[in-house]
């Protein structure tokens, strides 16, 4: 059973998208990142890179620190008073994890999509136009951004006749795609997805997975997922977290096919998690 499961991952990987032969351009490099919640050491000494135009999946059992680490990358842990993040997060040679740098400005360039679809209690149009407008986009630019972003996430045809209806009228899957559209409207370089499909049905999930594969042409993507098949289907690199440690980080194919650590093997074969 064990070897079969691994074998299935492998074939799925080969069928859907063979490992691209691309040069690795580093988009973001995390060095010695630690996170403390009060006295709890939640993320321990993580060293990890995100490569340009690739999808990196963070997997691991609940509470392993993968979401916490993801939230370091756009300084969202700043919003939790008891959290302390140390280490360096380098983007274009600049350490983003220093208090002198404005977290607001950083988040502008790193989009985030959350576990539960969280569209604003505003119209579909406003959901997307809201943040760009605050950064000075004109009325015409906003209109164009809305259409462009909705086209990209494949939502345009579904909602173009009701752009000024509340976003809460959309289904869960549509809401999540709207949230992705909202993130890409800011034209970020990196998009972080925190278990974006865990609240969705299988059809919506597969739509979002297709979308992620589409989006990596323009963006660098990091995705936290509970679903190992999902990681195998859509990611180029996979990082396995366990108890706050980064146990293994490799090409997805390699990690699923030939894991080097015993903990990875145990997790992949379902012995825990």
């Amino acid at each position, binding site marked *: 059973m064990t070897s079969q499961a691994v074998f299935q991952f492998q074939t799925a990987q080969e069928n859907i998208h063979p490992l691209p032969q691309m040069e690795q351009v580093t988009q973001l490099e995390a060095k010695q990142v630690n996170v403390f919640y009060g006295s709890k050491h939640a993320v321990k000494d993580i060293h990890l890179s995100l490569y340009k135009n690739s999808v990196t999946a963070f997997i691991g059992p609940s509470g392993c620190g993968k979401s916490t680490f993801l939230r370091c990358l*756009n300084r*969202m842990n700043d*919003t939790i*008073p008891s959290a302390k993040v140390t280490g360096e997060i380098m983007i274009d040679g600049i350490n983003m994890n220093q208090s002198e740098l404005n977290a*607001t*400005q*950083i*988040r*502008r*360039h790193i*989009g*985030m999509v*959350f576990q*539960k679809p*969280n*569209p*604003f*209690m*505003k*119209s*579909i149009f*406003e959901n997307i136009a*809201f*943040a760009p407008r*605050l*950064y000075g986009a004109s009325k015409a630019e906003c209109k164009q951004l809305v259409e462009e972003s909705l086209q990209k996430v494949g939502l345009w045809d579904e909602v173009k006749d009701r752009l*000024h*209806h*509340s*976003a*809460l009228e959309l289904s869960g899957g549509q809401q999540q795609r709207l*949230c992705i559209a*909202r*993130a890409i409207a*800011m034209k970020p370089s990196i998009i972080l997805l925190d278990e974006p499909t865990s609240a969705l049905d299988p059809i919506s999930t597969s739509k979002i997975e297709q979308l992620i594969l589409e989006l990596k042409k323009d963006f660098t993507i990091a995705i936290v997922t509970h679903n190992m098949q999902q990681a195998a289907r859509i990611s180029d690199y996979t990082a396995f977290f366990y108890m706050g440690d980064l146990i293994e980080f490799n090409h997805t194919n390699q990690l699923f096919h030939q894991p080097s650590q015993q903990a990875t093997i145990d997790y992949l074969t379902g012995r825990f998690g």
Partner: protein
Amino acid sequence: MNAKLTDRIATICFYLIAFLILSVLAILIGFILYQGLHVIDWTFITQPPGSILTGGGGVAPQLFNSFYLLVLTMLITIPIGLGGGIYMAEYAKPGKWTQMIRLSIEVLSSLPSIVVGLFGLLLFVQLTGWGFSLLSGALALSVFNLPLMVRVVEQAISAVPKEQTEASLALGVTHWQTIMKVILPAALPGIITGFILASGRVFGEAAALLFTAGMTSPVLDFTNWDPSSPTSPLNPLRPASTLAVHIWKINSESIVSDASKIAAGSSALLIIGVLIFNLSARFLGQWFYKKLTSTR
């Protein structure tokens, strides 16, 4: 006793309680309207009170004062209340200081209104040298409307899902912009409720106003809109009796022959005024909320 029967009995009890509350309200309003409605006519609404000898006349100045005092009070209460509520919900860090503030707010909201009135007499009437005035009354009313407003705003903001804030912050929107453009619009229905509750207290309050806004109204010239003129209805430094104070005064110390009639009419008018105000505030709030959130 089996579960089904218990459930049925409990259900009946709850219905009875709800019915009881509704019927108390219905009887009260019905009684007041029955007593007072026939007194209300165009003269009653648009004329000042008649002289002591002849009686008659209306309550136009008092009706106007009630609404004008509401406006003045809300001009003070809303900005400070909103600010306080936003601070408590979004900025206050848990600790001794915040606990102190919370305790102070609770104490302030439980002060008897007569005490607030006497405090207002000392501070807003005598110390400021304004004498009995609308402004003193508005300040005294603000003293006990503020805690209510702060609390309601804080609760309304806290009830907005955290995910909304996260979504906004993750887009690179600042905390302040998030509060103004995401959180407050979503919290609007709760804030409107607080506003209406606070308004109800302004309409109904008499004790605190006796010593601050006074029990009399000067002769008002409703064509004079210069706020600095003593006969102008808009002058905030003139004394003014509201409908509620008028009802109290007419009932307790007036010697006009038709005192009970005037009191009954004023009560009915006050109730109608409050009802119309509440309904329209709710309606306006709903309309505004729908506009902001695009719900329909």
